[in-house]
């Protein structure tokens, strides 16, 4: 099989913040009854993490898990291990009403690093990105420009962002323009 490459093939941009293609990330969409014990157990054994609360995102040594909607989770793992993860979930949840799909190749992910990451995203998203409203550990599904994205802080000054791969190049270009030097209003850091 041909070698998989991420959407902008590892490109990065250094401006007011650093915008970097996060490379290939294994992602599995899991839909089902988030209240069910067997689903919680299956997630625990798959990525080693308990289910997050509403809008929560957790990362651990074996991967990560994000709350996408009242019946949907997004699991993160190594790119090569996504198929195995789906197989594991299929086995653990057999007989239940659920859906697990490897969506790794349908997503693009980017990492933004720097003091102004909130402001770069805030240029194109209606989400409240003030430090009081948007904290580490919360994932926000919203839009950037006209396209759907989800983002969360993995560290106080590191924003992870995922979008559909079909718009990945657009989002990368958009982020690079938004992260040009000397273009941040420094609204959140003021005072």
């Amino acid at each position, binding site marked *: 099989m041909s070698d998989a490459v991420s959407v902008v093939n590892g490109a990065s941009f250094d401006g007011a913040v650093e915008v970097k293609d996060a490379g290939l990330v294994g992602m599995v969409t899991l839909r089902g009854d988030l209240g069910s014990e067997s689903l919680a157990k299956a997630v625990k054994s798959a990525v080693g993490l308990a289910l997050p609360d509403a809008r929560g995102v957790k990362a651990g040594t074996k991967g990560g898990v994000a709350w996408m909607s009242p019946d949907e989770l997004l699991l993160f793992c190594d790119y090569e291990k996504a198929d195995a993860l789906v197989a594991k979930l299929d086995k653990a949840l057999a007989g239940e009403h659920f859906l697990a799909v490897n969506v790794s190749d349908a997503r693009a992910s980017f990492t933004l690093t720097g003091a102004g990451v909130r402001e770069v995203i805030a240029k194109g998203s209606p*989400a409240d990105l003030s430090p009081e409203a948007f904290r580490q550990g919360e994932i926000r599904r919203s839009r950037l420009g006209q396209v759907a994205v989800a983002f969360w802080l993995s560290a106080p000054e590191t924003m992870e962002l995922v979008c559909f791969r079909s718009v990945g190049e657009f989002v990368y270009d958009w982020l690079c323009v938004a992260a040009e030097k000397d273009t941040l209003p420094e609204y959140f850091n003021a005072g």
Partner: protein
Amino acid sequence: MLILTCPNCGIAADETELSAGGEAHLTRFGAGSSDADFEGYLFMRKNTRGVHFERWRHSYGCGKWFHAARCTTTLEVFGTYPAQTTEPPAELIEKIKQKRPEFEGFSK
């Protein structure tokens, strides 16, 4: 800007993150119904001036449908509630009546 709090994910989402779904709580008339009922279900909408119940979808967020009650003239939002209901919750109706004494309650 209209800001509605999605009852499914708890986010105060602004209009640009949502898709409007038109009037809420329609009675569906399908095969076997009279022509007048079917026409009413397909085409006839209230076009209210004042309190209005609507369907919205948090399309850029959690992707779920919900209901909202708002005023079509002032854009005041009275509240949002889950989609899994055929009429607005009684406490919401009560709240609207306190704010708008002329409101006669929900009718289909």
